[in-house]
């Protein structure tokens, strides 16, 4: 299943939007954090987990989703949020902790929630799995259309919640797709050192559901496999587990010295950076011209600039608003 040209354009533009967004966040994050790096300082305090390199997974999957479909994301959620259609201005403002943010500054970068597009996060590893199964159950009980996609990292496959939710989804045949972004590292511990089997997609066999492994961080291949899985879920045939080989081009979080990486690993990953790879491929097969791709990049950059400007210009929340919104 090859994406149509407009879908390809959308995928490329969202990948670029995500990368440019992360580039902007990365730069602003460091404001006020030098010469001494203190996570609490600067316009964006706290932890920051960038998604550079993992964009193909988000767009390859979300290209098949509607606003009404549900996504649960992780502590590294920006690319997934952008691909799902989360409001970029409000998301940027949330990351800055501003009053105009999605949650008025209560959540920050690890807790991006946008009910308009059914997007939720948990900063706890694998804890989006249960809620995704529940959203899928909700659609099944109500007979309402929609699938739930839970994005997780490869480290999450060693969590109990992963197995409990997969079993639940399988035994109840829920319209759910689990997408494992295998960036090979759980902070500093490699997948090889932490995980007894090479491919988490093989774990699907334990639940009697299809499992697919996608090598090469290839957005088109991801689009194809995710499309089949999501269509299968929509047909009521139950969940699918997909693991995608992807690359974490940044550290686990900003400030991570990445001393645990083997020499040369980062250089090798940058050589495979999926955005230039996709650009080259779209040009090589003649489906896009330079001008068309430049236009998509310009439009992506404009969206990012607008979002960052909105976030910077927005006011801080009233401190005492910390005491509100605990209950509905």
């Amino acid at each position, binding site marked *: 299943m090859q994406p149509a040209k407009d879908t390809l354009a959308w995928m490329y533009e969202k990948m670029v939007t995500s990368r440019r967004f992360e580039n902007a966040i990365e730069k602003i994050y460091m404001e006020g954090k030098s010469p001494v790096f203190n996570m609490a300082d600067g316009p964006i305090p706290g932890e920051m987990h960038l998604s550079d390199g993992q964009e193909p997974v988000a767009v390859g999957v979300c290209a098949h989703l509607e606003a009404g479909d*549900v996504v649960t994301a992780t502590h590294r959620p920006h690319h997934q949020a952008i691909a799902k259609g989360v409001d970029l201005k409000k998301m940027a403002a949330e990351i800055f902790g501003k009053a105009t943010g999605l949650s008025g500054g209560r959540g920050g970068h690890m807790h991006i929630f946008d009910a308009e597009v059914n997007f939720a996060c948990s900063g*706890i590893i694998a804890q989006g799995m249960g*809620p995704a199964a*529940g959203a899928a159950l909700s659609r099944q009980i*109500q007979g309402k259309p929609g699938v739930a996609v839970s994005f997780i990292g490869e480290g999450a496959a060693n969590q*109990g919640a992963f197995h409990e939710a997969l079993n639940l989804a399988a035994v109840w045949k829920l319209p759910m797709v689990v997408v494992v972004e295998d960036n090979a590292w759980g902070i500093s511990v490699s997948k090889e050192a932490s995980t007894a089997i090479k491919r988490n997609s093989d774990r699907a066999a334990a639940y009697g559901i299809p499992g697919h492994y996608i090598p090469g961080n290839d957005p088109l291949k991801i689009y194809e496999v995710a499309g089949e899985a999501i269509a299968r879920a929509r047909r009521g045939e139950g969940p699918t587990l997909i693991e995608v080989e992807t690359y974490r081009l940044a550290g686990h979080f900003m400030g991570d010295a990445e001393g645990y990486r083997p020499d040369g690993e980062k250089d090798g990953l940058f050589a495979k950076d999926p955005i230039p790879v996709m650009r080259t491929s779209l040009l090589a097969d003649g489906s896009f011209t330079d001008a068309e791709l430049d236009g998509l990049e310009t439009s992506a950059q404009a969206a990012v600039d607008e979002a960052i400007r909105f976030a910077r210009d927005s006011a801080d929340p009233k401190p005492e608003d910390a005491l509100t919104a605990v209950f*509905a």
Partner: protein
Amino acid sequence: MENERKLTIARAMAEAMAQEMRIDPSVFVMGEDIAELGGVFGNTRGLLEEFGKERVRDTPISETGFIGAAVGAAQDGMKPVVELMFVDFFGVCFDAIYNLMAKNTYFSGGNFNVPMVLMTSTGGGYSDAGQHSQCLYGSFAHLPGMKVVSPSNAYDAKGLMTAALRDPNPVIYMFHKGLQGMGWLGTEAGAITHVPDESYEVEIGKAAIAREGRDVTIVSIAQGVHHGLKAADALAQQGISAEVVDLRSLVPLDRETVRASVAKTGRLIVVDEDYHSYGVSGEIIATVTESNMADLKAPPRRIAYPDVPIPFARVMEQHCLPNADKIAAAARELCGAPVPA
């Protein structure tokens, strides 16, 4: 009154759920052994037969999975009722409870609501030892973002369940096993009360005066209320008039009713089957001493579970549990009354 219909707490809970399920298609129930069996503690009996497997579903033994799923379903517009069979099992699923259920409303700035009920059994006294006998309500009440209720009788059990099902927030509904009315477990007779046929709510966050009195206020919740009432009976024979406050809810906590009662009696005893330290008894005492110190004629007292795991042996467990004798003895001391012969 003779002809009034009386129900156990188990029956009252099931009736509240059934009545709400009839009018609200978004309500569904899931948990371990809640469908075919009707709940280990009887509180979902009859629901499967009336509403079918789609809305009344037995789950795998996967509390993290299905409580997390309830959060996702609630955020998607459903009203799940989930059962954690014993509150002691919270250790395997607390992330779904306090990091998801209790925080997603706040983290989303009200973007998402999490309207769900988590019902769970509490309490000991029947030699089930320390992984099946705890109350732990203080641990839940300590963490912001979830309401916490625990009925002492069937009337409140039905009304609180109905209120919980209509609340847009997550509600922890804790039912004490000793009050549940299960034949095989032994039951406090005072928990079996008149329950109206029709649907009604008992407001979450509103305490009740279970017995009026002048000389000492006994504050408790669930089983402790019955201990307090029995102590009040014994004290009355000695001319000591005890007022018994049934908190019914820990979150929100009806601090005004507690303060008003102590303002009247001048003496406070808190009866708490949860652990002594860092818990409900300390919170109730602080509620009074922070603002009404001058009302106190004597230092407040607490009859709480000591800070030890709950033992198996009957004599050891009973030694640790609150009871009417301990409460009455504390009340006599506070009132300067002699120990009766």
